[in-house]
C-alpha cells in the first residue's frame, strides 16, 4: 500500500517535471524570463542597491545598440543563416557617415543622417545577401569574410583616428532625454530618447516577421529551404531581404552609437558580435533557422546587458563576464536541443 502510493507520487512528480519541460519547449520565451528573474533575485538579495530605477535606465540605454544588432541577427537566423558582420557594418557606416557630415555638411539634421546610416547599412547588407546567394557557401563563413573586409576598408581607407567634434545634430540627438531622475548618490540618471528607436525597430521587425508575406517566407526558408522553394518562395530574394534588413539596422545602430558616446571611433563595436549572438540564442531562436521571436530576442538582449552591468554589484570581477556568457550560451543551447528531441 505504502509502496503504491509512493510509486504514484514519484510518477506524478516525474509527469509534472516532463510537463514543465514540454511547456518550456513550447514557450521558449519563458527561458530568458526565468533567467532574468533569477539574476535579478540573486543580485538583488546580495546587493539591495540593485533595486533602483537608475539601474533600469542604465540597462535600457546599454541595450539599444545591442538590441538593434540582435533584431538583425534574429531576422537572418530565422531565414536559416548566421550573420557576424553587423558590427563591422556599423563601424564602417558610423565612421564614414560621421566623417562625411563633419567635413561636407556640418549642419545636416539628424533625420538625413539616420537615413544615410540606414542606406549605407542596407547597401553593405545587400552585398552580404548577394554573396551568400552567389557563393552558395554557409552564411557564417561568407559574413566572416565580409566582416574583415568591411573592417579593413574603414581602417585602411577611411581613417583610424577617433574624433569628438561630431555634427551638432547628432550630439544634440544623443542628449534628448525622456526622463531624468536623481539616484541615491545624488547623481542624475537619464533615459535617453533614442531608446524609442529600438522600440520602433522591434515593432517593425515584429510586424514584418508575423504579419507579412515576407515574414512567412523568412520562416519557411529558414525551416526547410527545399520545401519553401517548391512552395514558390524565392529563396534568393528572401536571403537578400534579410541581409539588407540586418544591414540597415546595423547602420542605424552605428549612428546611434556615435550620438550616444559623442565621439566617432572606428575601432568601436568590434568584438561585440558574440554577445549579440548569445542574446539571440538565449531568446530562443534556433541556430538552424525557422524559429525565433522578437520578444524572446529583446529579453535575451536584456539578460545579456543585465549580466554585463550587474555582475560587478555582487563582487564578480568583470573579467569573468565572458566566461559566464559562454556558460549561458552552452546552457541555452543544451536546453533547447534537449527539449527539441522530446
Amino acid at each position, binding site marked *: 500500500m505504502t509502496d503504491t502510493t509512493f510509486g504514484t507520487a514519484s510518477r506524478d512528480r516525474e509527469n509534472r517535471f516532463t510537463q514543465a519541460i514540454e511547456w518550456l519547449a513550447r514557450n521558449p520565451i519563458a527561458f530568458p524570463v526565468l533567467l532574468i528573474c533569477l539574476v535579478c533575485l540573486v543580485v538583488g538579495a546580495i546587493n539591495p542597491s540593485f533595486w533602483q530605477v537608475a539601474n533600469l535606465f542604465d540597462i535600457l540605454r546599454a541595450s539599444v545598440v545591442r538590441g538593434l544588432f540582435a533584431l538583425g541577427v534574429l531576422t537572418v537566423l530565422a531565414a536559416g543563416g548566421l550573420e557576424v558582420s553587423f558590427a563591422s557594418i556599423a563601424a564602417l557606416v558610423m565612421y564614414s557617415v560621421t566623417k562625411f557630415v563633419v567635413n561636407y555638411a556640418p549642419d545636416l539634421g539628424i533625420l538625413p543622417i539616420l537615413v544615410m546610416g540606414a542606406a549605407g547599412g542596407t547597401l553593405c547588407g545587400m552585398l552580404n545577401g548577394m*554573396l551568400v546567394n*552567389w557563393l*552558395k557557401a*554557409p552564411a557564417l563563413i561568407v559574413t566572416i*569574410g565580409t566582416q574583415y573586409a568591411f573592417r579593413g576598408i574603414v581602417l585602411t581607407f577611411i581613417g583610424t583616428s577617433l574624433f569628438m567634434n561630431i555634427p551638432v545634430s547628432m550630439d544634440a540627438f544623443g542628449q534628448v532625454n525622456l526622463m531624468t531622475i536623481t539616484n541615491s548618490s545624488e547623481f542624475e540618471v537619464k533615459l535617453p530618447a533614442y531608446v524609442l528607436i529600438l522600440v520602433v525597430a522591434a515593432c517593425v521587425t515584429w510586424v514584418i516577421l508575423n504579419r507579412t508575406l515576407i515574414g512567412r517566407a523568412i520562416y519557411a526558408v529558414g525551416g526547410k529551404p527545399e520545401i519553401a522553394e517548391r512552395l514558390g518562395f524565392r529563396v534568393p530574394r528572401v536571403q537578400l531581404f534579410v541581409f539588407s534588413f540586418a544591414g540597415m539596422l546595423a547602420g542605424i545602430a552605428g549612428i546611434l552609437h556615435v550620438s550616444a558616446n559623442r565621439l566617432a571611433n572606428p575601432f568601436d563595436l568590434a568584438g561585440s558580435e558574440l554577445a549579440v549572438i548569445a542574446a539571440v540564442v538565449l531568446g530562443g531562436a534556433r541556430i538552424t533557422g525557422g524559429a525565433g521571436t522578437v520578444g524572446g530576442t529583446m529579453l535575451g538582449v536584456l539578460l545579456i546587458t543585465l549580466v554585463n552591468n550587474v555582475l560587478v554589484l555582487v563582487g564578480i570581477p568583470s573579467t569573468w563576464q565572458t*566566461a559566464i556568457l*559562454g556558460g549561458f*550560451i552552452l546552457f541555452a543551447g543544451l536546453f533547447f536541443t534537449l527539449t527539441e528531441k522530446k
Partner: protein
Amino acid sequence: MSSKFYDGQLGFLALVNAVVIVASLFLVGPKFVGLYSMQSMATQVSELGLLALGVMLAMAAGRGGIDLSGIALANLSGVIAFNLAPQFATATDAPMLYCWVFAAISIVVGILGGAINGTLVGYAGLTPIIATLGTQMLFTGVAVGLTGGSALRLGYIPPLDDFANLPVMGVPISFALFLGIAFALAIVLRYTKYGMRLFLLGSNDVAARYAGIPVRRMYFITYTIAGMLASVAGIIIAARTSSVKWDYGTSYVMVAILIAVMAGVRPEGGYGRVICVVISACALQLMSSLFNFMHLSNFFRDCAWGLLLLLFLAASKVDLSMYLRFRTPVRPGRA
C-alpha cells in the same frame, strides 16, 4: 606523379606559393627568401597550420561542422599550463622538466576542451556553430578570468625558447613538429577506418548512421583531436612569444577558416586534404610576411584576408576543370 596523390587543388596551391614568392622577389628583394626570414615564417605557420587542421577536421565531419574555439583553447591551454606547471617543476632549476610538464598540461587541457566540444556536438546534439561559439567564449572567459586580462611573461626558458626559435639543420623544431603531426594525420585520414568513416560521415550523415558508423563517437573523437591540435598550437605560441595571454591572435579564428577554404576543404563536409591545408597555410604565411616586408598595415591585411576568403569561396564555385583541369571532381574519402 600518380593521380591518387596529385590533384588540381594541390597544383593550384603550389602555384599560389610560387606566385607569391616571385612577386615578393620583385617587391621586396632576395632578403625575403633568406634563411632567417624563411625560418621565422616557418615557426609562425605552424600555429596557423595546426589550427587550420582542426577546422578542416570539424568541417570534414559535416553537419555544418566548424570549430570556432581553436585559438581560444590554444590560449587557455597556455594559460592553465603557465599556472599549474610551477607546481611540478621550477623553470630555473629544471628547465627541461618544466617544459615537458608545461607541454603535457597544455595537451591535457586541449584534449579536455576538445572533449567538451565533442560531447556537446556528438552526444548532446548541439549544432557545431553554437557549441564551439559557446566554448570559445567559455575558454576565452576562463583565460581572462585566470590572468585578470593581462599577458603573463614566461621569461627566458632555454629549452622552450629553442623549441620555437632554434633551427636544427636549418629547420625550426616547432615547424618539424607541425609537419610530423600533419603527416601522421594524413596517414590516419587516408589509411585508417576512422579516416574513411569521417569522410563518409561528412558526405552524408544519415547514410553513415544506417551504414553502422558510430556517428556520435565519430564527432566526439574528431572534435577532441581538433582540441589537441589547438593545444599544440598553444605550446608553440607560448614558446615563440615567451608569454601567454588570452587575446593572442584574435583574427586566427578567421585565418584558420580561410586556410581551410583555400585548401579546398568543403564547408558542407566530406572532403579535405591535409597536404593542401599545409601548403595553403604556407601560402597565407608568405603573403602575410610579404605585407609585413612592404610595411602594409595590419588593417590592410585583415581586409585582404576577408576579400581572399570571399574570392576562394567564389573560386570553388567556378568549375575550371573543363578548361584547365585545375580541380578534379570531388570524391569523398580523400585525405
